[in-house]
């Protein structure tokens, strides 16, 4: 936008720079977007698994499990993601390599993609724990007692009662987490993983069209957010089917 106001002739050049074929850098941006989405999906999935375990641990676990879960969520939510990413990235790869050496294998290079997914998943897990714990607590507890009275096994109860009943309560928090996951992928640019933000920086640095590329990347991120919001709205309607409307009476 700003470039266009400087030089009208630059408009065609602008599209040239953004074109997906090699002279343009659009292909790089789209590849970065693809990597970002991969990381976001992976880390959100890992976060959900950790979050479910953590929420169950916090609610039904013994005193030690509960304390460990509390320490995990407090620490992760108080330390900046950037610091956690660096710590876990170095510590994690170091530990795995030492383990491999101790077992007699050679050192491995852990790909940035896997490390990014695991590290962000670990961070997401802490937030997901809190979201899911709150959601499980907001189920009418009689339903869970009834399930227990029927003699359901814990896994069957989780599958048939707890998870479906908590879903509508958990969805707003989980939707928020998903949006945070998509945006947190940009932090991996700092450790040098080529996701959207780093690809943008490289394209901008090579062409000197800083404003154009950062705006384009911003538009891509915004598109992900708005698209996710549309889908989340649908899912929420589906999960709340048969429940009374939550719209406030004015």
């Amino acid at each position: 936008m700003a470039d266009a106001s400087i030089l009208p002739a630059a408009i065609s050049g602008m599209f040239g720079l953004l074109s997906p074929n090699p002279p343009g850098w659009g292909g790089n941006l789209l590849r970065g977007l693809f990597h970002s989405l991969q990381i976001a999906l992976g880390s959100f999935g890992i976060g959900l698994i950790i979050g479910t375990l953590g929420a169950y641990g916090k609610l039904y676990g013994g005193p030690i499990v509960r304390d460990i879960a509390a320490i995990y969520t407090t620490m992760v939510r108080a330390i900046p993601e950037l610091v956690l990413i660096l710590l876990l990235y170095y510590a994690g790869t170091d530990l795995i390599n030492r383990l491999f050496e101790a077992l007699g294998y050679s050192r491995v290079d852990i790909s940035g993609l896997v490390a990014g997914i695991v590290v962000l998943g670990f961070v997401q897990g802490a937030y997901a724990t809190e979201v899911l714990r709150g959601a499980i607590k907001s189920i009418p507890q009689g339903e869970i007692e009834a399930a227990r009275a029927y003699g359901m096994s814990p896994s069957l109860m989780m599958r048939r009662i707890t998870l479906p009943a908590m879903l509508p309560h958990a969805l707003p928090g989980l939707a928020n987490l998903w949006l945070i996951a998509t945006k947190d992928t940009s932090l991996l640019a700092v450790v040098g993983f080529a996701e959207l933000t780093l690809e943008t920086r490289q394209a901008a640095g090579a062409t000197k069209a800083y404003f154009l590329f950062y705006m384009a990347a911003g538009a891509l991120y915004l598109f992900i957010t708005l698209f996710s919001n549309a889908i989340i709205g649908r899912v929420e309607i589906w999960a709340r089917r048969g429940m009374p409307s939550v719209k406030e009476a004015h």
Partner: protein
Amino acid sequence: MSETPIEVPIETFPIHKETGGIRIASLLQPHRIVMMLIGLALIASAVFFMRWDWLQNYGDLIAQGLWRTIWILIVTVILGFLLAVPLGLAQASGPAILAVPAKMFCTVIRGTPLLLQLWLLYYGLGSLFPQYPWIRGSELWPYLRQAWPYAVLALTLSYAGYEGEVMRGAFASVPKGQLEAARAFGMPRFTIFRRIWLPQAIHRALPTLAGEAVLQLKSTPLVATITVVDLYAVASRVRQDTFLTYEPLLLLAAGYLVITGIIVMLFRRVERMIPSKLG
């Protein structure tokens, strides 16, 4: 929000069931003592088996970085909040000509990563400014050539974007009867806002504000990527100089934990200062 369901009893008088003695007793359960001992052992082993001799050489730098982190945090939280109040007000009860841009601003800020916003401002604006002679000639130019104004601007806008949404909800959730009563008293509109609407909205938003302040603290390390020397940048510098991987990062994490604790404590104090009838 304005209507309370009948089944839910409202706790008009918060009853503090936990007294000091019980809290200490719960801390001294056997498994807690064992965990504390393990924690102490971990800290002690970190102190004795890791290298901390670099600390004295970097003491001044660390203090500077800490100061800059706290300074950026406080300035951006205050400025961001001042910006968030009109943003929230415009969305909650403004005319469409104000509400729509405010909503768009919040959506754009909340929909894009802070790192991208920071780089857009620093590299984007920073590369545009030198092209205009009148900016280069202005008195602001010495500041615009440094990194920290961009850092403060980006963090302020980001905080305002997130907080504007929070304040919108807070303004909307103040019971209408309160405002009507104030109007019936013949208060001018600004007095209503100053005495009735804003204080109640802030009270409602306070727990969220505390959370957002912690989130803001957690975003400050990003300014290190545009060459502002904050606590995180100091730790990176130590890592480059001494080739130590873990020690500076662990100290950094501990530092952020402490600052977070202080923020949470401060907000809890402020919250306790406000007499509350809500359960």
